[in-house]
């Protein structure tokens, strides 16, 4: 679900493989056409989506809000933790590693439920579903962003660090003026990819009924008994926005490549 896979598609299939693949695809399509319940498809009534457009849009708004929170707070914490991970003080580095590994290697769903139900039992602080959702998604985003920012920082050539040290630049100047600007340029494509991942992952927060797009879709379908229409529409909404963001990433990557001197 999270992370960004490489492209494994091969570009040098032979003609024979292509033909075989085409035959297989046509066969599969035929089988599907035969199996599909056309009667059901004919009876679908998508007017329900239009009827409930306002709550759906509101749910989408919450989804985008959660994505933005995960992005902004995640990058903020991620940058701070990535800088701490370069500290010469070992316990600090271990703490960062522990945080990153715990939140990267447990499911968001588990984190969410744990933060919502177990954490209040320890601390006595009760959080609303939305607060728990924001907390979980921010913490996990922070862990992934830490790794991306750390990789970005470590990709800055050693010579830039040495020049900064040799000039006796103050720490703040070294980070903000010498190291982070080129690191950010390296980081932008994976950062945007990650934000798309969290845009999709926010649907998991529906388990706590946080009123984002998925929750809203669920509620409406419970009232209208039209789950197929509604979830199809919601899938389309996720796709359209996700696709727009992916295309934007490609654009950004191209611009960055061009501006590379």
């Amino acid at each position, binding site marked *: 679900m999270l992370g960004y896979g490489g492209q494994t598609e091969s570009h040098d299939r032979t003609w024979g493989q292509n033909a075989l693949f085409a035959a297989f695809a046509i066969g599969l399509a035929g089988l599907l056409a035969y199996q599909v319940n056309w009667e059901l498809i004919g009876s679908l009534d998508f007017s329900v989506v239009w009827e409930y457009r306002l709550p759906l849009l509101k749910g989408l708004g919450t989804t985008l809000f959660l994505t933005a929170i995960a992005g902004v707070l995640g990058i903020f914490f991620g940058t701070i933790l990535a800088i701490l991970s370069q500290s010469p003080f070992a316990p600090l580095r271990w703490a960062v590693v522990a945080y990153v590994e715990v939140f990267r290697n447990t499911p968001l769903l588990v984190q969410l439920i744990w933060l919502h139900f177990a954490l209040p039992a320890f601390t006595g602080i009760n959080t609303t579903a939305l607060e728990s959702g924001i907390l979980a998604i921010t913490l996990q985003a922070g862990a992934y962003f830490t790794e991306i920012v750390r990789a970005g920082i470590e990709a800055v050539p050693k*010579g*830039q660090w040495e*020049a900064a040290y*040799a000039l*006796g630049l103050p720490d703040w100047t070294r980070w903000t*003026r010498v190291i982070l600007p*080129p690191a950010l340029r390296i980081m932008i494509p994976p950062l945007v990819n990650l934000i798309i991942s969290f845009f999709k992952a926010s649907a998991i927060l529906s388990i706590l009924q946080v009123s984002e797009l998925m929750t809203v879709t669920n509620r409406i379908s419970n009232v209208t008994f039209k789950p197929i229409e509604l979830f199809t529409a919601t899938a389309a909404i996720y796709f359209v926005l996700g696709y727009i963001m992916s295309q934007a990433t490609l654009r950004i990557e191209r611009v960055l490549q061009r501006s590379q*001197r």
Partner: protein
Amino acid sequence: MTEGRGKRGQTVVRCVEVTKRFGSFEALRKVSVEVRAGEVVCIIGPSGGGKSTFLRTLNGLESIEEGEIHVLDVRLPAGKREIERLRREVGMVFQSFNLFLHMSVRANLTLAPTTALGLSKAEANERAKRLLTRVGIEEQIDKYPGQLSGGQQQRVAIARALAMEPKIMLFDEPTSSLDPEMVNEVLDVIRGLAESGMTMLVVTHEMGFAREVADRVLFITDGQILVDAPPAEFFGRPTDERQAAFLSKIL
């Protein structure tokens, strides 16, 4: 030829039995040497012999395991603040220039003076223009390093170091990554700096330059200074077997 220049002042660098290790490898072995104000010291020797490591210990870019180094009024090893203060008085020029690639030439020259020395923007800017004129590329002030030739980049790097008005300059193979036709424009700048009385330590493979400009030549190999002699003597009458072997290979 340059022995009697008579401009030597007090000792500004004093290394006492300095040992530097990378793991179990001894990069420097009990190195002791002194440099006086105004001296130009060229450091030559085979690759991997410890020349660059030696130079980099002088501004704390490499820590040392044993011995001590006195540079100006700082005694190394020292704390972070002391080292930072020392670095503001000791300029360094690298083989690969290490200009800040995302900044204009102007920003490269003004960053450290404004943030580390507290100069105003206007003062730093004036200084930048003056230094770029001195290294002969004042018209490139608003370009980015990627738009400049290697020789121009290295001259910017020298100007960047000089913008801190250092008392000592360290050059780590300043011409080694340059195309041959650009070597001289950089050596000319370094030569001019030497003539102005700057204390300099220059790791170099340019023997003609060392012979002409140096007050002393150090031959470093296997982490030790085997020879420390004026250039005429150094190139004319080798005293060490390895020095003779090295010279016969490159001259």
